[in-house]
């Protein structure tokens, strides 16, 4: 398996180099929405400017590190029939997607982390101090978030076996997640009902939860609860994915001649 991953990572890296410009646009493009949202919030409550600055910079970082695009790829591949080529090979197609995610996210990390470090030299609001334990918890939450978003996106993509243009369905989920994951506003600013919901839904653990750890908004009770609920969602998603994969293969029409 390790050899297979090395080969896939290498190939995805070469492929990414072929898409240099797109990769850059893709990375910088995603920064615009959080920046605008940040500007709006700073305008609403200037006294909290520093907190918003830090929060939304963290959103940019966490959002990029957990972003998932697999639904778009799967939707296209299943609809156009090229997905057959993955089914034919003796390796589950999901590994191709995992490898791709690793390559792109390592690139994001390699670019975003130094940018943050340099920016923190000039902007005091970006500085933070965390113990080794906190950093570890943050990284774990980040990994869980990435896994959750990836799994949800992949599951939706596999629905392409039943529905053409499944991205429409995913679009609805994205809008819900925009609010409940903490991308539009820190979760503490949401109405209490939504806050309550967000604890039990998976979206918070995709973005908001790692940020709560880095901003120290989450106490140890919150963290314990967060990790537990996020882990339950991972299990639910994995079970759903396996089931949908099996059912999908039966349903597969392997379109195109």
């Amino acid at each position, binding site marked *: 398996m390790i*050899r*297979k991953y*090395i*080969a*896939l990572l*290498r*190939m995805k890296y*070469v*492929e990414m180099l*072929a*898409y240099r410009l797109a990769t850059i646009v893709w990375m910088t493009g995603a920064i615009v929405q959080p920046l605008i949202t940040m500007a709006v919030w700073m305008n609403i409550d200037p006294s909290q400017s520093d907190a918003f600055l830090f929060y939304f910079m963290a959103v940019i970082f966490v959002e990029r590190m957990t972003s998932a695009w697999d639904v778009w790829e799967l939707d296209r591949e299943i609809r156009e*029939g*090229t997905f*057959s*080529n993955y*089914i*034919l*090979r*003796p*390796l589950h197609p999901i590994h191709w997607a995992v490898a791709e995610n690793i390559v792109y996210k390592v690139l994001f990390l390699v670019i975003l982390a130094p940018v943050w470090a340099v920016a923190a030299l000039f902007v005091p609001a970006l500085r933070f101090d965390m113990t080794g334990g906190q950093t570890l918890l943050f990284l774990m939450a980040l990994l869980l978030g990435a896994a959750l978003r990836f799994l949800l996106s992949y599951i939706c993509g596999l629905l392409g076996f039943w529905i053409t243009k499944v991205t429409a369905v995913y679009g609805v989920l994205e809008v819900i997640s925009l609010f409940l994951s903490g991308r539009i506003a820190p979760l503490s600013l949401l109405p209490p009902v939504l806050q309550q919901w967000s604890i039990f839904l998976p979206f918070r653990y995709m973005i908001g939860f790692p940020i709560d750890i880095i901003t120290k908004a989450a106490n140890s009770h919150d963290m314990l609860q967060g990790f537990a609920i996020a882990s339950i969602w991972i299990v639910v998603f994995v079970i759903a994915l396996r089931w949908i994969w099996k059912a999908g*293969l*039966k349903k*597969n*029409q*392997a379109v*195109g*001649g």
Partner: protein
Amino acid sequence: MIHVKHLHKSFRVHVRQTGWLEAIRSLLNREYRLVEAVKDISFTIEKGEIVGFLGPNGAGKTTTMKMLAGLLHPTSGEITVGGFVPFEQKTEFKKMMSLVMGQKSQLIWDIPPMETFLVNKAIYEIDDRTFQQTLDELVELLELAPLLDKPTRSLSLGQRMRCELAAALLHRPKVLFLDEPTIGLDVHTQEKVRRFIVDYNREHETTILLTSHYMGDVTALCDRVMIINHGTLIYDGELDVLTEKLAPYKRLEIRFANIPAVPWENYGEIVEIEDGKATLRVAREKVAEVSSHFLQHFHVHDINIQDPPMEEVITRAFQEGFNDS
């Protein structure tokens, strides 16, 4: 190597109506129709055979092939390929077969074919030595050397198809399914691909099932053909027998300096008589006699004897059926 018994495949298809009102109505009340793509097909293919799978568009060729490769789940019936049930998707099964689809590339589009080869090497767990040997052989046979490092998207269709074959053969499959492998290729490249398939089959005793629209593929490659129409197998046997049975004629084209005034109908069925050229359909057993007659008694510029085009033979097969086979 391949056993198929009473294979069926039907699809539930949403019936779409044209027109705005109908479209709105169909949103509320979807109508479905059951399309039987493959109806009760049975056949056996032995190890090392090359079999041509013929039939018009939509006859069920590709559907059958996709079931053999494990991509589609049969509605009913039995399939085993090399002892495996394709749809169970066993790793060992996937390692012993390959499906090449003329229209669906497995090569990764924006990077060179060599990258796909390396990924396949890892996925199929091919050891370094075997990989190098197989690759060298394929590079030579398919003349790939200058193509390996160019992005796939910049290759011509023929170049890409050759790389496609190589990618499919790296793990030395025992069974090879070729779905329209020469589609869209020019005559020269078609010829190259065909020669490669024949050589490869001879060398490695690979069992090959091939679909094609080009009769040239079938006549060049296959001794045995299966003809499928409307999802049913209507002929399974030797190509020569098929030709003789359906086309007991040859096409005779003679060019003269001056076209003689002879009772043409005595020699065969007249296809066309024009300035300096006569085209006749002559019974097989009379071809030698008729052509030597003209060569001896008239000033003949050129003479050309051909089997009737396979298209014609097959079309006739579809029209008249195979009641006696």
